[in-house]
């Protein structure tokens, strides 16, 4: 082969590699916007219909171009929204639907103008995409229906899209979950709906975390006011988690931006803008430490949603940087590369069907209603089944220091009832938590105060054989 031909091959290879790479990575001021039509009126069948009516679209806007260029990423879809940009800044995942009647699914678009490709095909739909540090997609499925009368076979749960494309469930609670994001430490932060069950300490929605394999479900912040809702939590560069807090469950009402601090999430709930209670649709971190806010533009008589960019210490939104008379701009994300969160190796063993739970002191609680009661001598563990009923797994002895240790079935919602020597229930915790296969899980007490480290003491329960508890024969896990 001549030198010239070798050179040609090299150039062709280089061009091919360049094409495979992210052509848009160099764009620094690109924005991915969600626009919803101002005049949308059709009835909403589900939660996403209400937020993204037909005609809603996801588009990329290059602010560096002159004039500004726009590219619709959701071409061919009747509605789209809820975008999340990949860590390399090259791809955009968003929810969309192909026809007014079809389920919402998650699509992957790129900044090259190709048609979006579906990446989920979940019965009942999928929503709220987020990306793990590995780049794997996590999402919620199914999409909740708007009216209680509409059939809903499954509670919305968190799923991971595995490398082969198949979904695997990560959350197994007895409450609906929504609105995912990934924290810098790699945990999945999500919103958990309140429980209506007796004994539940959760009055309103709350933020919870799980690890990327579904282990270690933990309360992160909340619970907020009963009847309210939380949407769109996002970690900001200054260590706050911002979210939209709406006073009503009615999805047509907008909320205000609030935040909690990572340093003390349970004690730091505050408005994001102390000087203005703007109705906000989304908050996203932007390059540097700025924030991208989509909120009602009070300077506009119709209060259309516009895009604002503010510094983190801002108390008011000031003037929008982008408005459109035809559209509400309800979400905006920067299309730039960003650091990946910290990863995590899974401790789960899918071959196993049980996990172990160690409670250090079942008599320790931050729940004041437990004060003055007698001490627990045993604990009854319950589980929620596929039919929605609660079954008793069995009982485990509580040692003199309040500790107990049990081996329990995995991937089912687990509840706890502490009992005194007369079998009176002292405290009941409805099925909220779950264990993943081979997970070893510990807790300090029953509804212990949040963010509490354990005492350094050897639990007495470790001196006794572990109590093995199983689902009753014939029970179908959810």
């Amino acid at each position: 082969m001549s030198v010239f031909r070798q050179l040609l091959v090299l150039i062709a290879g280089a061009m091919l590699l360049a094409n495979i790479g992210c052509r848009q990575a160099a764009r620094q001021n690109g924005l991915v916007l969600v626009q919803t039509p101002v005049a949308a009126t059709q009835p909403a069948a589900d939660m996403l219909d209400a937020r993204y009516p037909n005609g809603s679209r996801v588009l990329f806007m290059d602010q560096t171009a002159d004039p500004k260029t726009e590219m619709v990423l959701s071409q061919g879809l009747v509605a789209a929204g809820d975008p999340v940009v990949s860590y390399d800044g090259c791809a955009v995942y968003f929810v969309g639907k192909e026809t007014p009647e079809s389920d919402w699914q998650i699509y992957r678009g790129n900044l090259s103008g190709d048609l979006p490709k579906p990446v989920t095909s979940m019965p009942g739909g999928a929503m709220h995409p987020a990306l793990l540090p590995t780049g794997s997609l996590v999402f919620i499925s199914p999409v909740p229906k708007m009216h209680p009368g509409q059939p809903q076979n499954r509670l919305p749960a968190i799923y991971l899209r595995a490398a082969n494309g198949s979904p695997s469930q990560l959350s197994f609670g007895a409450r609906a979950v929504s609105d995912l994001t990934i924290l810098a430490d790699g945990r999945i932060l999500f919103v958990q709906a309140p429980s209506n069950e007796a004994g539940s300490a959760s009055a309103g929605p709350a933020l919870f975390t799980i690890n990327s394999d579904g282990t270690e479900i933990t309360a992160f912040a909340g619970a907020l006011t009963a009847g309210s809702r939380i949407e769109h939590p996002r970690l900001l560069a200054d260590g706050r988690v911002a979210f939209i807090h709406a006073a009503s469950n009615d999805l047509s009402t907008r909320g205000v931006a609030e935040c909690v601090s990572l340093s003390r999430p349970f004690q730091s709930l505050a408005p994001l803008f102390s000087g203005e209670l703007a109705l906000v649709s989304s908050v996203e971190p932007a390059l540097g430490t700025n924030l991208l806010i989509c909120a009602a533009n009070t300077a506009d008589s119709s209060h259309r949603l516009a895009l604002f960019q503010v510094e983190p210490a801002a108390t008011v939104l000031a003037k929008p940087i982008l408005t459109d008379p035809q559209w509400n701009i309800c979400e905006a994300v920067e299309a730039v590369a960003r650091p990946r969160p910290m990863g995590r190796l899974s401790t789960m063993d899918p071959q196993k069907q049980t996990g172990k739970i160690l409670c250090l002191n079942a008599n320790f609680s931050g729940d004041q209603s437990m004060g003055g009661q007698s001490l627990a001598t045993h604990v009854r563990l319950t589980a929620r089944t596929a039919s929605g009923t609660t079954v008793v797994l069995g009982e485990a002895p509580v040692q003199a220091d309040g500790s107990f240790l049990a081996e329990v079935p995995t991937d089912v919602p687990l509840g706890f009832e502490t009992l005194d020597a007369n079998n009176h229930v002292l405290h009941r915790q409805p099925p909220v938590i779950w264990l993943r296969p081979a997970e070893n899980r510990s807790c300090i007490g029953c509804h212990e105060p949040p963010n509490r480290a354990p005492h350094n003491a050897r639990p007495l329960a470790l001196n006794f054989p572990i109590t093995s508890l199983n689902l009753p024969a014939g029970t179908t896990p959810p």
Partner: protein
Amino acid sequence: MKPRLITLFLVVAALGAVAMWLRQDYWVDHMSRMSGQKDLSHVTCFNCHMVSTAKLRWAQPRPHHDAPAGLAVSPDGKIIYIALDDRDQIAAADAVSQKVLRRVKVAGRPFGLALDAAGQKLFVTCRDADRLAILDTQTLKETASIGVGMAPVAVAYCRTSAGERLIVANSMADNISVLSVSPLREIGRPSAGREPFDVTVNPDGTRAFVVNRMAWLASVKTVPAAEVTEIDPVTARTIGRDPLASAHLSESIGIVPSRSWVLNPLVKVRNLVPITQVANGWVMSSGFAVTDTRTCKVIQLPLDEANNYYADPSGMAVAPDGKRAFIASGGSDVVSVVDLDKVSAWLAAASVSTKEEAINDMSLSPEYVIARIPTQRNPRQLLISPDGGTLYVAERLQDSILLVDTKTLTTKGRIMLGDGGLNDPIRRGERVFTTAAYTFQHQFSCRSCHPDGHVDGLSYDFDTSGIGDNLLDNRSLLGVAGTEPFKWNGKNPSLEVQCGPRFAKVLMRTDPIPPKELRDLTTFIKSQPPQRVARRHDGKLTPAQERGKAIFFATKTSAGVEIPHGKRCSSCHRPPLYTVRLSFDVGTGGPFDTPHLLGVANTAPYLHDGRALSLEEIWTLYSTNDTHGVTSYMNKEQLNDLVEFLKTL
């Protein structure tokens, strides 16, 4: 000549191979008999033969760096004195120009510094020479020297009713040298806790406070506690011991005269709880202790936040007006600023039980931590200028001193001592070893359990085989090169495996350390020599040690009865590493990896789960029926002799 040698070598090797093949049974029997192993798949000739320490990484020369250790500042605030222990040097720097003015040689790894009241004498503890040197600050020449206890790391100067005194923390002798300055002599050497590491004295010179890095030796299932030891500088007597329950690794102590407080940073350890998670400080967290010197009551307060940790609190400095304390977190490259007025207000308002629980409340620190000042790598010692205006931060693995304006809490500059040493893989590895960046929420570093590569003296309960049945003694990393396999069950064939994905999964709860950093980390660990041991200055053994040596290598009991090969000390603990790197059952619950014995004197507790608090207890309590070597024939004196010999290894 060379080809002939190669040919000769090949011929000998071939003959040897043929001989081995012809006498396979003999060699199998030999290996089985000498190693005590039924399964020979992991046994090679090199377990017992051709082992040399000379080629190990820790025996090789290594680069030295300008890592700052102790700091001192002249009374007028103009000159900063910096101990460069790795260089055997003391540096004097101009506080205004931020330039190094002079360096002088001080032999013996100078580490801790203090000045007399006039700023004319610089007192230097020499960690590897077991001495205190006095330098004239005008000439920086050594004018006097005196022997103190083993491995002195800190010194404090004070004036007392009986004259000038020096209080020296002897870290490896577990005692404190109290010296008079004129004449320079040792008045007394009271015992401290375990590994005394820093000293401070109250303004009137009536009480010295010594913080100890390691917890007292105690049963593995009891709550560990380090202590603050109180000394009378005049009489050199111990006048108090304030326990720091479930806390250790305190490396600094400061006094707040206006509040009658003594403050020391600490690691709150939770080693008795199974490690099922690390979130919410389940394994350890960082904090500081407030000791009321009038009541001796100790309150521990957290330094961490609910979702972000500040690992390895090391140096501490208190502003002269007592308003603020500064704590360096060596694992997180941060100096935390603590508002002591806010601490005082919180303490005044909190109930007794709230104060007792405070250290476990991971969301408390925003009540009093008002700023976190970022630093470069591994901030350790801190110092405040006499006027309180400048905080000096020794960035140990950056070879620099950071200057911080204490009013604005902004950086004023940096005294550059060296280049950071990033061309040295050992230095790069030490950076990996000391950073908490690879653990979940930056909770801890390798150093958090292995201070200076050694041990923290505790056992931890890993949950790899279930919950609650896996208490394992922490093993020293000093001198581990060439002693693979690792882990008590001997299943990790290399440090790369030991420190790689396995640790990421069971302890760090993150992604594994990236390959390049892992290589640097293991290079650093392999470069760590065994810990120095106390021996006679001429290197010879004492008569008792000689007798102990004879027992260690004995093939017969005192009565002349043959000791089976597998029951002799030296069979499993074979020199020069004092391990054959195989697992044996010594009656403690299964076969466990044989630890090397280099520096064994300072690695208590012993056995796989740390059940033996001393070397003696290995045989007096835990070797019934001669399960751990034939030792039942020994009388008390013989056992003492054996232990005396082991302490020389």
